[in-house]
């Protein structure tokens, strides 16, 4: 169970050689729900994009299953990417396809399953995020929260071992957001899926996450890490304490 699946080593994250985060080091265990926290604009999405190999780091490495994704090219990169699922902050659904086709696309590309099977799997994934009623709508006809849920379903399409979710519950009502939390816990439990989640929802952090790191914009690094319930109770770092207790 407690095998490390992601190692971040000396990662300087940023764009065009401008580091936004400097020298990040942390490990993520297999099957854990790991949350990245921080104020708006501090670089959470940026760190996430580095961890999935989308943006080349200023320096440092990110190892997934022991392989460095920042330097992986060609086949190795493709294999690494097939093992992770990503739901972007704004959904990033393909606009010319219906919701169902969006979920079916990765299955069509990467498996030999017959069409009937692909459709059945895609429907199950959409039902999991309570989108079973919107199969034939275009992304354009969805609300913000529906887009988000469809994006999560697409990220899960190939049953990846690691799911990266950028603000999955932003824009969802409390009930749907709680549903999503339950789903995350269920999947982490049932499938031993590792979750790396960027979120601000305090409630959801306290419910789902095993461990958090909090990034600081000024510090350009990790300002706190560990069990969120302990961080909430510990007043030794005033900023972190205020953050968790919603006390400006």
């Amino acid at each position: 169970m407690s095998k490390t699946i992601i190692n971040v080593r000396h990662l300087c994250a940023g764009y065009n050689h401008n580091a936004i985060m400097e020298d990040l080091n942390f490990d993520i265990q297999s099957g854990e729900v790991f949350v990245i926290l921080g104020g708006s604009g501090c670089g959470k999405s940026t760190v996430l994009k580095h961890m999935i190999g989308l943006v080349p780091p200023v320096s440092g490495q990110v190892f997934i299953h022991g392989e460095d994704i920042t330097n992986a090219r060609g086949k190795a990169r493709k294999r690494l990417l097939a093992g992770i699922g990503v739901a972007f902050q704004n959904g990033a659904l393909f606009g010319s396809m219906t919701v169902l086709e969006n979920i079916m696309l990765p299955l069509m590309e990467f498996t030999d399953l017959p069409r009937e099977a692909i459709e059945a799997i895609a429907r199950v994934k959409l039902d999991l995020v309570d989108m079973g009623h919107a199969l034939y709508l275009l992304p354009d006809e969805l609300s913000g929260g529906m887009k988000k849920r469809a994006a999560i379903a697409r990220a899960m399409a190939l049953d990846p071992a690691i799911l990266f979710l950028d603000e999955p519950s932003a824009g969802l009502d409390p009930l749907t957001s709680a549903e999503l939390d339950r789903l995350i816990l269920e999947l982490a439990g049932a499938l031993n899926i590792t979750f790396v989640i960027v979120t601000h929802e305090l409630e959801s952090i306290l419910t789902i996450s095993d461990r958090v790191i909090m990034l600081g914009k000024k510090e350009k690094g990790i300002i706190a890490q560990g069990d969120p319930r302990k961080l909430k109770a510990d007043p030794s770092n005033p900023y972190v304490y205020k953050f968790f207790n919603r006390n400006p």
Partner: protein
Amino acid sequence: MSELNIETVSRTTAMLFSGRLDAPGVARLWDTAVKTVKKTGRGKIRIDLESVDYMDMAGATFISHLSRLAGSTPAEQSNVVTGVKKEFAPLLDLSQKSKNEALSPPPKVSYIEKTGKDLTTSLEDAKMFITMVGEITAALFSCLKNPGRVRWADTWMVAERSGVNALPIVILISFIVGLVMAFQAAIPMRMFGAEIYVANLIGIAMVRELGPLMTAIVLAGRSASAFAAEIGTMKINEEIDALTVMGMEPIRFLIVPRVIAATLITPLLTVFSNLVGILGGMVVILSFGYPPISYYNQVVGFVSWEDLAGGLVKCFVFGLLIAATGCIRGYQTLRGPSAVGDATTRAVVSSIILIAVFDGIFSVIYFYLGI
């Protein structure tokens, strides 16, 4: 690897799965398994998962799909599946919970209905176009009465982007048109010893027709499309709605600067186009051994100020048409992934059509005016 063994014992068919039920495993077994269940019929199937080592959502979906085919009620369906290992039970639950009912795709519209709908949309489209032309005209007049309300900084920027930056391409195209036309005309005219009159031909053709037309077409391709894309993207991003609710009329804010800029720069660009086109013709005449001064005299002696003025007046109208069409098409952008692309295409097509039509109208008017 996944395996499926089928055993029939006293009217019950047992399907024994083993190995890894993940996407590749399911892909191998799907067809056989589904066929077996359908052939055997309800109530006589048992699905055994005792020797399954690994199962993910693809596998779970597979099993629930089979159980749904094998039993009619949920109770029956869950009885069908036996030997589920503890670690896979939650997965199966998740996939069985999903209703997976056949929500059928929306019906296709018939050809006649589609044609009718297309017709109404194009009529509505034409109506909106005309309304917008009216609104833009009104906005232009109110801005002329009150020039302080025009956003001059934006106007200058548009003038630079669609005017100054278009100069190289306008010059290139006009030069080549002048050169090629002179060359083609010189060959037959030379047979009559009349090649010097190529100068008259080029002069009058560039100044009255080709200069304005070439400039207008370049602008339609460069700027009408750009205006449509800019405004279309703003529409999609709800920026236009934001302007509206902040009480700033989008027409004055976005369209008027573009229209003013394009209307003013088109005649300017045309002057360059005329000059360079005539220069292009001169290269051909020089190569026949005539001195530059005789080409110059021929052009200046033949082309009148009315010709030049007539051409430039046309350009004001072309500039207005191009900018207004581009902006209106952008403003009409609907939602959807290809909406901005459609808007730019329509902007270019409509403005070229309008240019051609108005060019014809001007020819008729100038003919009656004797210009």
